[in-house]
Structures are given as C-alpha cells and as structure tokens.
C-alpha cells in the first residue's frame, strides 16, 4: 500500500509541472492584463501604465517571470495580489472555509439524494420515469438560471429566504446561516445529484442481474436486504469513484453558484481575479485546484481498493 501511494505521488510531480506551464502560458496569452482596467480611466497616462508595469514586474521576459514564480511557489511564497496588494496565501485561505462549507454540505445533500433516487429508480420501475425526468431536468438546467429563478420565487415573491450572501448583517445566528445556505445548496446539489443518481441507477440495474443476486435470492434473502446489502455494495464501487472525481467539479460549479449568490468563497474570488487578470491569485488558485484534483483521484483509488478486496492484492 505504501509503495503504491509513493509511486502515485511521484507520478503527480511531472503532471503538476506540466499543468503549471500550460496554465501560466494560457493566463498570459489571454488578452488584457492586470493593467487593462487602468486604461479606462482617462487620467491614467502612459507614463503611469509604464510605471505600474515595472512595479508589477510585468516588463520582464515571460520565461523569467515563470521561473521566478515557480521557484517562489514551491517555497510557499505565493506573492502579492495585483488587485489589492495583500499576500495571495491570505486571500485564498480566508475564502476557503466558505467554499468548503457550501461545497461540503452540497456534496452531502447530493450524495444522499442520489442514493435514494438511484436505488429507488433501479428497483421501482414505476417511480423510475418520474425520477428520470427530474434527473434530466437537474442535469440540463443551467446553474446560473436556476439560481436566479429560485431567488425570484423564494426571496422576492414568497419572502421566505434571503436571496444572497452568507449571513444577514447583525442577524448572525445559526438559523440565519442555515437560511442563507438553503438556496445555494439546492442549486449546487441539484446538478450533481442528478448526474450521480443516473450512475447509481445503472450500476444498481447491472448489479441486480448478477448471478450472486439470484444465488442470494435462492438462499431466501429478503428483497430489502438483497438490495441494501448485496446489490448496493456492488453498485457503490463505480459510484464512489465518480463522486470523488466529481467532488473537484463541485468547486468549479461553486464558481458560478458563488457569484450568483454573492457567496464569499474561492469561487467568487476566482471570477473576480479572472476579470482583473490578477495573475498571482489565478496561478495559486489553479495550482491548488490541480493539486486537489490529483489528490482526489488518488483518494478514489485508495477508497476503491479498500472497498474491493480483489484489487487489494493486485498491486
């Protein structure tokens, strides 16, 4: 197991270097730069632009900029944000809890929903149609649109829930925090639950046709147990892989959800930084994203190996 882990981690290093190169090149190739926004102000003169370009180190050759960035990055010096001059590390870290809270709760809700929907639609043919329609709706509704419609209905028309933000000012308490979570969690969870329930449904269907199910049924195992203990366990393997790999997509889904709901997480930081071409923040964000994806795929391998006894001895 340990040698397996070490091997996988070693494989990650060249991958991350490659990712950093591509991302760096892409960000700098995108038109406009951190100084683009200054151009709109007629009082910012060319000498100001030149002065700022030098101050930001943007006048150096790209390769030099990359090497300086990479060397600093591995030493944990992530530089200062071009937008507000604060350390990039601080800017990212202060946003992480809000995103973890939103993405984490949404993931739990989505897993719970997809478990119920996936199993029920695999077992009860009658319910299947209704669930399928719901799932397809969930997959195809744009996050952006769903968020705005929910705001209109629940915040503006009915007035039951706050439309955006993480807390009401001076509201503070637990109830207030929960109320602010409801809509963004619904939006973020809906998209994922819909997709995941389809995976679970098909792998449950497949599981139920396996010979060991017939064997168990022949042994007199009750239907309920057959589904929950025998078939589900088998069907969970691909499901867990998908969920863990998708968990990183949760964060990219959060980018849109967070900007619709003014949620103060890393997602809205990313949209802001992208519009301002805040290179240092963007690089740190994208590298953290790449590292997270790599780690989650490692985690899904580890979990699947522990769930599936056959794989344990294989490596």
């Amino acid at each position, binding site marked *: 197991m340990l040698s397996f882990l070490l091997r996988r981690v070693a494989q990650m290093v060249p991958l991350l270097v490659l990712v950093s190169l591509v991302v760096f090149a892409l960000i700098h190739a995108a*038109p406009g730069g951190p100084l683009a926004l*200054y151009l709109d102000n*007629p009082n910012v003169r060319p*000498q100001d632009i030149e002065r700022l370009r030098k101050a930001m180190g943007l006048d150096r050759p790209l390769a030099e900029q990359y090497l300086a960035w990479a060397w600093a990055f591995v030493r944990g010096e992530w530089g200062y944000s071009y937008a507000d001059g604060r350390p990039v590390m601080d800017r990212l870290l202060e946003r992480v809890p809000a995103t973890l809270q939103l993405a984490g709760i949404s993931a739990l809700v989505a897993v719970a929903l997809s478990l119920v929907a996936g199993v029920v639609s695999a077992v009860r043919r009658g319910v299947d149609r209704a669930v399928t329609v719901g799932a397809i709706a969930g997959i195809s509704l744009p996050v952006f649109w769903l968020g705005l419609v929910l*705001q209109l209905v629940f915040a503006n028309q009915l007035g039951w829930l706050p439309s*955006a*933000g993480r807390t009401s000012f001076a509201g503070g308490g637990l109830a207030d925090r929960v*109320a602010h979570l409801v809509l963004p969690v619904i939006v973020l969870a809906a998209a994922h639950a819909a997709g995941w329930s389809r995976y679970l449904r098909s792998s449950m269907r497949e599981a139920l046709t396996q010979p060991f199910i017939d064997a168990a049924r022949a042994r007199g195992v009750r239907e309920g147990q057959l589904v929950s203990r025998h078939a589900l366990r088998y069907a969970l393997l691909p499901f867990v892989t998908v969920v863990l790999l998708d968990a990183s997509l949760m964060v990219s889904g959060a980018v849109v959800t967070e900007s619709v709901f003014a949620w*103060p997480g890393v997602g*809205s930081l990313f949209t802001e930084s992208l519009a301002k071409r805040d290179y240092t923040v963007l690089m740190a964000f994208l590298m953290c994203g790449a590292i997270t994806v790599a780690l989650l795929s490692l985690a899904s391998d580890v979990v699947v190996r522990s769930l599936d006894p056959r794989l344990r001895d294989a490596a």
Partner: protein
Amino acid sequence: MRRRTLLLALLLSACTKASSGPSNELLIVGYDREPDTMNRYATHILEDIQSCVIEGLVTTDEHMNVVPVLATEVPTLENGGVVMRRDGGMDVTWKLRPGVKWHDGHAHTSADVKFTADAMIKGDWKPESTDGFDRISSVDTPDSLTAVVHYKEPYAPYRLQFLRGTLPKHLLEGRNIDQANEYNRNPMGTGPYRVAEWKTGEYVLLERVPGYWRGSAYPKIAKILFRFVTNATTRINQLKSGEVHLVALVPWDKVRELKDLPAIRLNRVLGNGYEHVTLNERHFPPFADVRVRRALAHAIDRNLIVKTILDGLVSTVDGPIQPLSWAYEPDVPSYPFDPTKAGVLLDEAGWIRGVDGKRRKEGKELAFTLITQSGFTIRENVAQAIQRQLADVGVGVQIKLIDGTTISPVWFSGDFDAMLHWWQSGADPEITTFYADDKIPPDGRNIDYLNDAPLTKVLYASDREINQDKRRALLQDAQRRVADLVPELFLYNTSKIDAVPATLRNFKGNPTNAGPFWNVHEWEIVR
C-alpha cells in the same frame, strides 16, 4: 413534526430579518464590487466607500461644482489663491480648515498636504495616476494650515489636485505605502465614518466617528454597510426583497423593474460621460473623409434609440463636454436624423450605391466592424440599431462583442474600425487627451486618430489657461471645432440613476466618479 416546526421557525426568523428597512441606525448598500484598496490614491475602482472615510481638500457636488471640504475655499486667481510666476510656473495656496482632526486625534495640517504631494512625486509605490503631481516642483508650508504648491508650469485642473484627500504623514512617513496594509485596509481619514470591519468577499461596515469636525449632529446615520453583490440581477433582487436598501448606478435596463416600488426612490442626475461611436481613421481610412463621418451622423436616429432602447432615461448630446460642465457649449453644429442628406454626402464622397443597395468606391465596399463590450444588454441593442440604420443608407456594419478585460488592450492598440463605448471623466473639462494629434495611444486616448492642427493648438492653450472665463472661451472653440469635424458619433449622455430608500433625505447623486457618497454626512432617514 417537531422538525417541521423548527424549519418553519428558521424560515420565519430569516424573513423577518430580511424585511427590516433602512434606519438612522443602519443603511445597507448593495455594491457591485469589492474595493481593491481603501487608499484613494491607489484604487482604480469607484471611490464610494473610500470617500466616506477620507475627505478631499475639495469635492465635486451634484452640479459638478468644485466645493471646498478640508480647504476653507477653492483657490483662484481672483481670491489670490493662485499666482502666476514670472518664470512661467504657478503657485497655488491651499488654506486648510482649522480644527480638523484625523480619526486618531492628530491634527490635520499642511504637513500632510506636503507629505502627500512628495509621496506622489516620488512615486516609489503604486498610485493609480500621478496626473498633475508630476508638474509640482515643491510644496511649502509657511504655517500648519497653509500649503503653497509650486507648479513648474500652468496646470488648469489644479483645483482637483487634492480631490482624493491627503495621506496621514504621522502614519505613513518612511514606510512602503503599498504594503502598509493596515492603512490600505482601514485607512486613517478625517471623514464622518471609519471602517469598523472589512469581511473579505462579503462586506465593509462603516461606523460613525465621534467628534466629526462638522459637529456632533453629523453624520446622521450610525452605520453604513456595503455588501458586495457582483451579479447585477442578484443586486436588484436584493433591493426588491429589502435585503439591501440602496443601489448606486442602477443599470438602465433594470429601471423599469424598480419604478413602481413604493419603498424605492430613483434619483437621476446627468452624468459626466457620453456614449459614442469612435471612428478609427487610421484603421479604416474611409473615416478620414469628413463627409463620410457627417453622413454616418445624419444616418443615425438617436432620438429613436433613446426613446425605445433607453426608455427615455438619457438625453442626446452633440459633444464631449457635458451640459453640467461650466465649459459646456450648446451652440455647436449638429447632425439631425436625415437619411437623404446622409446619402447625398456619401455620393459626394464617391461611395455610390449599387443595385444590391451597398455602397462601393473603386470596387471596395463601405463596410466596417463595430466592436463593443459584451454583457451590456443596452449597448448590444444600440449596436444593432446602428447596424440597421446604417444599412438603410447602404453602409455595412458587422458587430463584434468583446469582454470587458479584453477590449481595453484592443482599443489601446488601435486594432479596430469603430467602437461603441463611453468615456467617464472627472469634473475638469480637459479633453486634450481625446483629440490632440499627439495624444494617440500610447500617449493618450485619441483613438479616433484625429489629426487636426487648429484643434490641437486650442486644446493645449486651454490646458495652460488658469483664468476660467478665458479657458471657457478656448474650450468653446474646441467644442465647435470637434462638432464640425465629428471625429466620433455622439449619442447620449450617460445619466446616473441611483435607487435609494424613499425615506432617505439629502441624497443628491453625483455626475462624476467622485460618487454619490460625497455628502454622506447629511444623509438622514425620515419616516
């Protein structure tokens, strides 16, 4: 059952909070973006939040007049505050208001004015623009309330030099201002408010400063909360649900949704900006012919565009200096909607209409690409209207939408035919940067690539004229010349519409980027 009750309780508690209205205890502002820094000299975002904390020596009011704040009066030639030196330079004497204190109790003095000018001249940090400061040779402080600013040459916009206030010497002297984070996040000012809390990504909370120099009656509102809600639709939704009380700069296409809400009053002022189509003569040579430019101006029905697309919220304009400015000249050549005349002018210029309705000259079709920033519904609609109206006179237009960050380097490099956009200017009527022939990028904003010696001459003369009446006369000449040349197609003034609580008194708005918070100390909720 119990769970259901709990949920209901949660919902109820949430909605009671959402509906609490504005009061003199708390006013909640829905704000479109988080400030980058609270340092007014370094920010390149509207200074609304900053201006509640840091006061300028002057500010500009709702009529775009320059009014004194920390100065006792605005220096002019007439009151002796401005003296032209024999060596060609000028001296501006700022008299500071006595008894003004920084929030930590230190006196605000002429040493702070000198420190600010020195820091800007030195420029070893990242101020957004050092415009004007680079013409200052030195600042003298004969006493603690008098600062004499020595300019190397006449500088007409001198009155706005310290619009952004002063930097506190006692706090920042000898420090790297870019990295003085406690100042940049929570600045020391003299204004009615200070930053109580800045929760990144969520809000900035301002609280009243006791002992404000205007007296204990000010400010009337105890706390102002700026909530960051980037998405415009969400921001308007929050306004409608009462979660925020005030939204500055409501997009014109959202005004209809807010018109009939009893809790909201829409405050409209003329803006100091104008929407127009820039015609790049260098990139698309047919624009170099003034007859073509005049024809295009005649071909566009601006009144129809304003009436239909903009719901009549704005008014058409014929030049770059806006009606609110003291230098505005209304009596200039204008180009009323007249497609027949447009056709005649194009014929004269040699662009003859073919059987397919398109105009050609020496086999080349008269067709250009119009770029504009994506994401503005109104602008996209205006671009389409222009495309249609020009098609009617045989001119082809292809529209290209470009996102906000990408479009700036495009126009700065001059790589476009025509662009639909606006300029938003400060209160000073300087337009040299837009039209002088040596102000093409990267040296200025002359992206029409206009090359007109008489205009350039009068513009530079106006920049060096300190006497306001003489400067007005020069700028009036310049405006007539600009209107005659039509280097760009002038469309409409960019009105500023702010949605404020119906119970808010003394909200006046502001045409410039100084922002509507310039008189926040006198705002008051009256039920």
